[in-house]
């Protein structure tokens, strides 16, 4: 029997091959047959989760709450030093210099990345902005958000900070950051589902030991991570409570 592993669709595209390398490594280390399935979007992935097809997932913090509370998943580990942060940006030519100066009616470009959108919306609140008084411009990718700003089709964009930082220097020169979140405690986590829970400790040991051998370090490098660190149940519960306070 093969178990199904999936990754939150907001992963950095540069690391797509890294997840396949990681999956191969994980199977070798644990002796468990695991099939990696990459879904095209959040809806397709959530549908698979709702049908109990998923056994292992690198989950965004927004979905983590649902996975723990409704599907009996438990956390394994998180990448060391990585946290989810959002950026509010405008075109460099926009005279606005503070999110509080933005006014209702503006055109907002964003992706369907749920926790990034949530953090972005929180940072727009000081300007009395909410989904009801802005024009929404949903995008498939952060590059599209940038393009909408550069072409003047959108006034404001919400970015995953990591995605913004990864934009080309030429694009970034034409954009201006109004706010960068410094939340630190919201992060993606690798989580294990009910069908595999008896192997939780084994998986955790494999992950935490990755930096101890050359192959493991190479796999981490292909994911863009330094190392994994353990996430215990209470840390996950704390993050879920925190997400609960932020849900609009």
């Amino acid at each position, binding site marked *: 029997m093969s178990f199904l592993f999936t990754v939150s669709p907001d992963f950095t595209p540069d690391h797509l091959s890294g997840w396949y390398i990681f999956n191969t490594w994980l199977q070798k280390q644990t002796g468990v047959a695991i099939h990696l399935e990459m879904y095209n979007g959040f809806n397709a992935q959530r549908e698979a989760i709702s049908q109990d097809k998923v056994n292992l997932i690198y989950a965004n913090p927004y979905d983590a709450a649902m996975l723990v509370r409704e599907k009996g998943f438990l956390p394994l580990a998180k990448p060391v030093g990585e946290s989810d942060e959002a950026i509010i940006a405008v075109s460099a030519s926009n005279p606005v210099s503070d999110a509080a100066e933005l006014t209702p009616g503006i055109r907002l470009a964003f992706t369907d990345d749920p926790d990034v959108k949530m953090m972005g919306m929180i940072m727009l609140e000081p300007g*009395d902005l909410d989904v009801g008084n802005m024009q929404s411009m949903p995008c498939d990718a952060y590059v599209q958000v940038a393009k909408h700003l550069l072409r003047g089709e959108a006034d404001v964009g919400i970015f995953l900070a990591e995605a913004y930082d990864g934009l080309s220097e030429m694009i970034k020169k034409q954009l201006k950051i109004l706010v960068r979140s410094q939340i630190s405690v919201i992060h993606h986590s690798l989580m294990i589902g009910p069908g595999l829970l008896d192997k939780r400790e084994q998986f955790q040991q494999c992950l935490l030991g990755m930096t101890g051998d050359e192959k493991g370090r190479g796999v981490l490098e292909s994911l863009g991570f330094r190392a994994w660190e353990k996430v215990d149940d209470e840390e996950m519960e704390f993050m879920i*409570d925190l997400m609960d306070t932020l849900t609009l």
Partner: protein
Amino acid sequence: MINDMNPRDIVGEFRETVLNLYGGMQRKVFYTGIETPYPDGKLIVSTTDPTGIITHVNQAFIDMSGYTEAELIGAPHSILRHPDMPSAAFKDLWDTVERGEKWQGFVKNLRKDGGYYWVKATVVPNIRKGVVVGYTSVRRKPSRTKVEECIALYPTLF
């Protein structure tokens, strides 16, 4: 247990008053008219036990309150209580979270140096195996419009 504020910690001209806090406690406080603006992009996070005693604070909490972590852990959350905040707001907070629900409101907090800062606060109960083991409170930057509304409203609630 909560100590009175120390006049030596206060920056600028101040007034003094005695607050009646939850649990029958009283505290002498000194307060100025100096506002510290809420920092962009940050969240102030804390947790308390079920009685409101602080068990965890993040760096933004320490920076904005002006207290050290050691002074905050073990202190009642009302160490931030500003005399301009009507007690009705905190009664509503406690009534709401004790029902197991989320509370949200705008709060003027008192700093150790007598100054203040406005926040949009959200408090949720931490439920573990069906039992409330504490509360998580997260504060974010409020809209100035909402703050102005509260400045007009809160004095009418005393």
